């Protein structure tokens, strides 16, 4: 079995669950002996811009990250020169491109001669198509049995490679436009998602929540859509409850960790914080992450009069994530729509009890969590106060949750994926 996988960023350069999932799944497939050509977009420096950081994160480290993955035995990495990144919007994409051009202009006084070499499209949608062309050219020199594409930006590439190669296409839906944008969907993105889902031979959804959206919103027949839950990399607490006894501190910490965007419900978190503080005082609310609602969240905290009780850390990665988990007494994920939600699993893995929104895929797999409707601010606050006030609650959520999370292994997700590849292959020759 050889897979042409159109994936995303690898640790430590992770901006969200998509990268974590691609990494976990690929690693587990590799261990199962599945051969993978892993294709990901990387903005490569041109010869004229060697001292210009065209696109963050730092390229050198990105290369190192890929070299570091030598521990993979069956995976070959191929990078395609493109500035695409997960969680971009067209506006943020254009801003990045303009920034790079401005940098080049500042260095060389003009841009005309570079535009040709830069070669990126100033428009994200066109760039997605250009990426598809690059992928097709790359695929011509690769051998594989099945194509596996992760999230919408790679669907056109997956579809194009499938068309040229005649190999079956499996697309993996980690989120949909409805999760990210509510009812204000971007028509262009929706159309790309819909096209990808319709041409795919098999669709992998990260939860039944997502599967339902795929069926009801994209008009896909249910027998084509399989659910494969994400796993969790065990790197936190090793199950020894005394291992990281909380530092004696006067203040309890309630943590929000995720992109600060509409989808993640930061405003519900803050309103619940306000209610909690009416009851108990010795608690701080930490919002770890960045996103397009960051400024609004800061203003909202000030507006609610709880500015001094809410800390914004910005985007955290690697050890900092571990550190914040070690400090936290409780993790809250009030997502408006969460296809899966890997972060709460990491919290459990680090012995932090969790409150999760019922509108999440992870609530389908975790029983030992407190569950709330994202809009029910009173109930979120009620449950936060309960965890902070009734010690047996935290103790039980921690011990049972930590145990439960161990059942979610990437190796199980990988074997399900492998089975789906086989079904797609069998279906393609019928």
């Amino acid at each position, binding site marked *: 079995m050889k897979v042409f996988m159109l994936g995303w960023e690898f640790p430590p350069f992770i901006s969200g669950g998509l990268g974590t999932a691609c990494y976990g799944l690929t690693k587990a497939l590799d261990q199962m002996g599945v051969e993978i050509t892993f294709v990901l977009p990387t903005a490569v420096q041109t010869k004229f811009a060697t001292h210009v950081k065209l696109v963050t994160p730092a390229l050198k480290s990105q290369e190192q990250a890929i070299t570091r993955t030598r521990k993979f035995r069956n995976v070959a990495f191929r990078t395609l020169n493109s500035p695409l990144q997960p969680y971009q919007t067209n506006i943020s994409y254009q801003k990045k491109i303009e920034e790079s051009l401005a940098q080049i202009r500042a260095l060389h006084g003009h841009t005309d001669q570079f535009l040709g070499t830069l070669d990126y499209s100033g428009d994200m949608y066109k760039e997605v198509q250009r990426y598809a062309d690059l992928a097709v050219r790359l695929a011509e020199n690769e051998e594989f049995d099945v194509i596996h594409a992760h999230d919408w930006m790679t669907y056109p590439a997956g579809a194009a490679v499938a068309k040229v190669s005649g190999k079956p296409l499996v697309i993996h839906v980690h989120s949909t436009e409805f999760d990210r944008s509510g009812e204000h969907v971007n028509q262009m993105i929706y159309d790309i998602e819909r096209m990808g889902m319709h041409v795919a031979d098999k669709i992998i959804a990260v939860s039944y929540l997502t599967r339902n959206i795929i069926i009801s919103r994209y008009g896909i027949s249910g027998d084509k859509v399989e659910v494969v839950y994400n796993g969790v990399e065990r790197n936190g607490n090793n199950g020894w409850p005394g291992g990281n006894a909380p530092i004696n501190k006067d203040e309890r910490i309630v943590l929000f960790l995720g992109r600060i965007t509409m989808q993640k419900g930061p405003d519900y978190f803050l309103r619940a914080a306000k209610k909690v503080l009416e009851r108990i005082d010795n608690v701080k609310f930490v919002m770890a992450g960045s996103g397009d609602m960051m400024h609004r969240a800061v203003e909202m905290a000030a507006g609610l009069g709880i500015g001094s009780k809410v800390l914004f850390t910005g985007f955290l990665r690697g050890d900092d994530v571990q550190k914040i988990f070690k400090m936290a007494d409780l993790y809250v994920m009030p997502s408006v729509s969460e296809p899966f939600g890997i972060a709460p699993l990491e919290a459990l893995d680090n012995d932090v009890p969790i409150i999760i929104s019922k509108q999440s895929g992870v609530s389908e797999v975790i*029983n030992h969590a407190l569950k709330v409707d994202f809009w029910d601010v009173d109930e979120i606050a009620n449950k936060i106060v309960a965890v902070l006030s009734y010690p047996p609650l935290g103790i039980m959520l921690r011990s049972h949750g930590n145990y439960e999370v161990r059942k979610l292994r990437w190796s199980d997700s990988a074997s399900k994926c492998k089975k789906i590849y086989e079904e797609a292959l069998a279906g393609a020759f019928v």
Partner: protein
Amino acid sequence: MASVCFYFQVHQPSRLRHYTVFDDHDYYFDDHKNGEICRKVANKCYLPANRLMLDLIRQYDGKFKVAYSITGTLLEQLENYAPEVLSTFDALARTGCVEFLAETYYHSLSFLYSRNEFAAQINKHVQTIEKLFGQTPKIFRNTELIYNNELAQMIESMGCFDAIISEGADHILGYRSPNFVYSPKGCNRLRLLLKNYRLSDDIAFRFSNRGWAQWPLTADKFSHWVSKVNGNGFIVNLFMDYETFGEHQWKDTGIFEFMRHLPGEIFKHPDNDFKTPSEVAKAYQPLGVIDVPHVISWADIERDLSAWLGNAMQSNAIHELYRLERKIKSTGDNNLINDWRKMQTSDHFYYMCTKWFSDGDVHKYFNPYDSPYDSYINFMNILGNLQKRVDKHHQQAVPAGAVA
């Protein structure tokens, strides 16, 4: 001789309403939901089952007999939401073929936490049964058939009971059979009746299980099993929830038809009859002494207390509740005391059980909460409010001038 002894447990808890830490009022119980469930169960189970029992008693001229243990929390609800059920129980009481047993009024675990409270709840239940049905209970059954030597000794010392009922658990019986009357260790007069859990569970749990080798269970087949006891036992104690009829086993499983035909089939064997627990205790001499040093119950395979007290939340909640006893009783305020007592019902702690939670078990059907965590939070929020009311009462009770 094989005497069939039916005893049905009839109980509904007073379910708590959703109560957040921000609520500040003393309406703790979900009247709407309790009324709805009470009426539903009345229509599906209590009314049709009572009618059936009444028919059978008449049909067999008083030879068919049964016993009930009806909790105080249910009797209160029936009075409010389904008084017609009380009339049919009263009609059953008047036949002389129905015995009513005593238990803790609030279906509580008080024996384990407060002997005073335990005795008070038994007395309250006995008085209620006397008032409603005109008979004084002579048989005691403890909540969830929780039992040990100490309990039997305490019940004997109360002086008003002839026998006590418990689970015929394998680990207390050993090679012995539940089909005899026994003496509890340390007791002189009190008799011990043990549930025949195999035959009881054939009806209560396995009746509609199509995966069971004996399915479908007919009255004829079941009577055959009962008759086999002749020669190596005197009694077959069939103890089960009354809700078996129509609620746990739905009407379309044929459970009512099974019961309708059962007495006729039992009587086909000339040595068989039906007896109430009191008649059993009088009719047969104890075969030996049963020693139960550790607490047992009728729950699950473990037959222990883990369904109510097995985890940290359960034990925390119940300890906090009983810690209030002295303070709450010293207020003399009946509203406070009644609220406190209704919170003692074992169901509240059962809802917090995490034993089967991960497997998504059938027990969920009878649980008003989405998760054991939610039920614990709700209980503790209400307990917090109760505590506040008690403290307030005590502050007001001591006027400022009293110090001087």
